[in-house]
């Protein structure tokens, strides 16, 4: 099994955290991983993208140029998703912010209203975790069943209260696509 995912959004949406937690979970589930981020110098609002691969085998090129799945967190990233998604791949669209679907009739488009779900749970900043739940449910590549222990080491001790909120966001993301 190899799942190559391209993640795209703007700085501040948690693209990098999403990719890191995805591959961290994959390692705990016994998979090989590569995570290569690239982002603008801006603290917020610049581009944020990541090439993310999880696999049961050794990973060759860490650059995702023909993605099995693409995560599109904002409208500006639609164009890159159209380019990077492989023939017949899956594109996950944050339908709260993305109003036009990628022009890829061959691809499966999965709509996840990440921001709306996150706001309903009480914090828009967990929109990325909603998306991760959806990605897990549809691709099956990473189960995320060891996420809680990972979040414990991911968050500093004064932020531990956020763990249950993040877990809830992942669960809601899974539900949104079942």
């Amino acid at each position, binding site marked *: 099994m190899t799942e190559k995912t391209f993640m795209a959004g703007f700085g501040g949406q948690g693209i990098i955290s999403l990719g*890191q937690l995805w591959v961290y979970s994959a390692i705990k589930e016994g998979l090989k991983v590569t995570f290569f981020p690239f982002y603008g110098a801006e603290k917020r609002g610049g581009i944020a993208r990541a090439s993310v691969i999880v696999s049961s085998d050794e*990973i060759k*090129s*860490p*650059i995702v140029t023909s993605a099995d799945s693409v995560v599109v967190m904002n409208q500006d990233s639609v164009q890159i998703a159209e380019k990077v998604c492989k023939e017949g791949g899956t594109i996950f669209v944050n339908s709260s912010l993305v109003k036009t679907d990628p022009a890829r009739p061959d691809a499966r488009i999965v709509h996840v209203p990440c921001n709306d779900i996150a706001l309903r749970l009480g914090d828009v900043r967990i929109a990325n975790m909603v998306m991760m739940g959806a990605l897990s449910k549809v691709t099956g590549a990473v189960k995320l069943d060891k996420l809680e222990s990972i979040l414990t080491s991911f968050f500093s001790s004064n932020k531990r209260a956020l763990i249950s909120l993040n877990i809830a966001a992942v669960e809601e993301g899974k539900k949104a696509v079942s």
Partner: protein
Amino acid sequence: MAEEIRLMKGNEAIGEAAVRAGCAAYFGYPITPQNELTAYMARQMLAKGRTFIQAESEVAAINMVYGASSTGVRAMTSSSSPGISLKQEGISYLCGADLPAVIVNVARSGPGLGGISPSQGDYFQATRGGGHGDYYTIVLAPKGVQEAADLTYEAFSISEKWRVPVLILADGLIGQMMEGVVLPEPIDPGTLPRKDWAVGHAAEMHRPYNHVTSLNLVPDELEAANRARFERYDQIKKELVRYEEIDVEDADLVFVAYGTAARVCHGALEMARAAGMRVGLFRPITLWPFPSVRLSELAEQGKHFLSVEMSMGQMVEDVRLAANGKAPVYFYGRSGGNVPSQEEVFAEVKRLMGL
């Protein structure tokens, strides 16, 4: 119990491996894309009571390495391409004084200030000495985070064994990428044997004081020192050459690529094999000494070579020297910070095969 797999950036894994190798002194100066390495060393070296100095410049940092290494401790610096250029004078001095050191280049695109994206444009500088005078440094080229950690760890003992600085030639992708890594056993610097050539402890050993210098104004003596060093180089060429071969045996066309480019070629190799093309991969791990002997054997067997680099064509010259006219050598490269995709490398294979 299985060894713990940690998720780390290449830069951090290099830093942790150096700490575990018993590096007693690190000197650096910030530059993208290796900043996480300097930051990691700032935290870890100081926490362990070892020496960390953010120098006033790259030139100062490499000369601090010279000073620390003269005392016999494991010393290290790191930078990225323009910063490594600044260190070349000091590297030449280290070589002239036969001092060990570990120097990490997380290379970016050039020439000049260039860009901050990954590149392999420093191959010539790394493998031809880089500074003035007759010398080489040992050059190790990791293909990912695990190998970056393993080679950095080993670099210290290799450098001490041969008394030749070791350059780790990575690139911005390996530095910035995260992968799973199993880290080597920590070594306490206090338990490492003292060096009989080091300055500072000659009196208690009842020997004459050691004078560590690269200066020698007597031509015959300087030539003798150079000859002795080149005899060591010959020995290094016999003992240290490392490479990895994938599907080379039945291959008609063999990629020659190192580091990130080798990963891309491995992906292209799978695409080619799936299409029924007999393609292999030869990955030099030591760039100096270069695995010329093995490449020469493969050339004799009638294999064709395609050197794939993130440069305008540098290692391809060593491939041509090894092939020595016995096999065609082709080149495909991207520069400016662009990393080729496996699809475009595969397209080049199809073009060469007339498909």
